[in-house]
């Protein structure tokens, strides 16, 4: 018995799930020989290095600190010697400042509790929890990498009523959250309790799609012990992991256009973040590693790895028995919202949820043909937009029209483009429209 299965009401698609690594337990992979740690790992301002060339660092030691309100601390994921502070190519394909560390052994900072004991009692009070989350460099682990502590501080006048924990993992292929829920269920629930305490709410909902029935059952069983946490089964429907869609599905509340979840009394955190919160608050462990799915149809051994931040992707590819010859595209993240990479010489960062190696045959876009006005893009848009119209407006540089037709509401889920029978790259145009309209709005606000 899992209770009523809910979902969101507007639009949505159901791509092939391809959860190839769903049954692969989380494996630790060896610490890399060299760690590459980019300074821009969160949404917002990059962090500022506080170590210099030649410094010896331990695992968990602060190596860069937040600069500005929306920014985070970064801790060393390895022990060794700082080789240099230099530009490194990150997943965006651009060179960005980063710290390169030559690894030597695996010596951890003494303040971190390395025992396997599960610590249930939450000793810190709300304020201290948020301080800890901030200090330990936590960001949203679902991919958006928004600093976690910022979300935990509702603006004046707004009050949180519900904490939503996102265990939806609606992206095809990805299974890191799924595995985490199965293997670290208790920790996730304690992490949830910690977040509830910090937010001063007594209701939390963990949303999980029913293709992860084992996780639903497992957490249901465990949750009996934790007051106020409900496991909400959800129909398999993309993009249910979108904050707004999840809130709609679980609570039937609609976040108003242009507003944040707190507007309807909600704060949403990912299950991975809840786990990281447990580790930070109960074990004093900064965010220095994460679970990453490595998968693809040509991959010999689709896997879920617990890997240190800064590990080159190549190390993980080696761990799945090599790079398939037939690979045509490397994606950082899932196939719907992930970013294509130009090489494997980039490191794992806080927001990396998966590496997907796509076969050559499936990686090329189909040729674009004229829009046949079938409206299918409109039917599937979870935000109730008209992608055919918005893309045309952007193409013709009619950005005022794009703004009026709510281009800024687009969550870039890609459902429209996935569906379009004419294979029009709708989202390319929508992104352009969002960039231009965003700039226009900023300019207007300046005046």
């Amino acid at each position, binding site marked *: 018995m899992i209770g009523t299965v809910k979902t969101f009401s507007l639009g949505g698609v159901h*791509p092939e799930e391809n959860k190839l690594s769903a049954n692969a337990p989380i494996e630790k992979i060896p610490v890399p020989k060299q760690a590459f740690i980019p300074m821009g790992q969160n949404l917002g301002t990059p962090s500022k290095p506080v170590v210099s060339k030649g410094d010896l660092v331990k695992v968990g030691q602060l190596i860069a600190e937040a600069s500005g309100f929306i920014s985070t601390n970064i801790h060393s994921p390895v022990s060794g010697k700082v080789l240099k502070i230099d530009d490194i190519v990150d997943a965006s*394909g651009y060179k960005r400042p980063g710290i390169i560390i030559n690894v030597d052994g695996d010596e951890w900072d003494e303040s971190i509790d390395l025992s396997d004991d599960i610590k249930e009692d939450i000793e810190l009070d709300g304020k201290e929890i948020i301080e800890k989350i901030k200090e330990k460099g936590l960001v949203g682990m679902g991919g958006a990498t928004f600093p976690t502590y910022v979300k935990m501080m509702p603006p004046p006048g707004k009050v949180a*009523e519900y904490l939503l924990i996102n265990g939806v993992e609606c992206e*095809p292929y990805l299974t890191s959250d799924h595995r985490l829920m199965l293997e670290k269920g208790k920790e996730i629930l304690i992490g949830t309790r910690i977040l509830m305490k910090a937010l*001063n709410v007594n209701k939390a909902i963990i949303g999980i799609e029913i293709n992860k029935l084992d996780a639903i059952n497992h957490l249901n069983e465990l949750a009996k012990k934790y007051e106020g946490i409900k496991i909400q089964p959800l129909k398999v429907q993309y993009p249910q992991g979108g904050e*707004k869609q999840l809130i709609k599905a679980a609570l039937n*509340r*609609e976040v*108003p*256009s242009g*507003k944040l979840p707190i*507007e*309807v*009394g909600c704060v949403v955190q990912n299950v991975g973040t809840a786990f990281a919160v447990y580790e930070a608050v109960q074990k004093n462990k900064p965010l220095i590693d994460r679970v990453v799915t490595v998968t693809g149809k040509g991959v010999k051994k689709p896997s879920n790895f617990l890997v240190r931040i800064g590990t080159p992707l190549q190390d993980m590819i080696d761990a799945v028995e090599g*790079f398939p010859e*037939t*690979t*045509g*595209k*490397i*994606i950082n993240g899932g*196939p*719907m919202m*992930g*970013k*294509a*990479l*130009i*090489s494997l010489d980039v490191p794992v960062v806080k927001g990396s949820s998966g590496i*997907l190696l*796509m076969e050559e045959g499936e*990686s*090329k876009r*189909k040729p674009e*043909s*004229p*829009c*046949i*006005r*079938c*409206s*299918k893009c*409109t039917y599937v848009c979870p*935000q*109730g937009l*008209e992608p055919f*119209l918005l893309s045309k407006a952007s193409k013709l540089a009619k950005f005022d029209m794009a703004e009026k*037709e*709510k281009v800024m*509401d687009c969550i*870039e889920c890609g459902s429209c*483009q*996935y*569906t379009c*029978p*004419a*294979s029009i*790259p709708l*989202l390319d145009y929508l*992104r352009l429209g969002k960039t231009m309209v965003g700039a226009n709005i900023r300019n207007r606000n300046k005046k």
Partner: protein
Amino acid sequence: MSMLTVSGSPHIHGDDSTKKIMYGVVYAMIPAMLVSVYYFGLDALRVLLIASVACLFFEWVIQKYLIKGPITITDGSALVTGILLAFNVPSNLPTWMIIIGALVAIGMAKMSFGGLGKNVFNPALVARVFLLISFPVQMTSWPKPQAIINGLTDAITGPTPLGIVKEGLGAGKTMSELAPELPDYMQTMVGQMGGSLGEVSAIALILGGIYMLVRKIITWHIPVSMLLTVVIFSGIFWGVDPEHYADPVFHLLTGGMLLGAIFMATDMVSSPMTKGGQLVYGFGIGLLTILIRMWGAYPEGVSFAILLMNAVVPLINMGFKPKRFGAKPGVVIKTS
């Protein structure tokens, strides 16, 4: 390592295509095609072939020699137009007239507007109305359907049920006096009545409609709103004066009503983009059809009604937007 592709998300595609949709429509028309050949014989086959080949040919010629762009005749859209054109004419229409119809459909109504997806009006309907106005005699002499087994030669021509009613009522007769001349419901269901190629059999058309619904090529909104409007509107008049107005079922099953509702009004290119807009569009077509059938100069009004509503689609699209997520203000949160 081979060359890596780098492009924006999403990186997968649902595998639907224009071609699949267009051929889906072609498959949906197979039952009606078979019925037409069954009742109108080889002549029906001739019309179907000429119309289809001519439409494909004109699209090819225009793309190759006038536009000098890519040739896209295999996408299925010209074939759909060809078959729909054939469906909209009598089976004894001379070959050269069909070819003119195809030229009007593809050349004037489709390619002049910029080709697939850009046309405002349904190409097959533009051609039908063009032919009706240019060749009124040939376009309104319908061979009586006779099953293929009864021989193919010397088909007798006669008016359609709608023609009988229009003329009869105009001449002062009542519906009960006209009843013997009209087909019964069973006959109209299977297609035993005078009419254009593709419009005679309700069953065949409905089968095609169900297929398209299941394949999600069309949604129910346009056909249902159009037919419901027809039933309600004609029902009111029939209820008040059954001797001078045909009953709603008669309206549904005769003429181009079902062909129009299922295959012509649902044409994605020339119909509204949102479901709300589609309901209004269907309502408009239903209303105009009945107005023309009851009081217009022509016995049949479906084509005119659809073309008139085609013209209004841009306006409907402006007025009917999808339900936006988060348009209504959020719930008020009680502070605990």
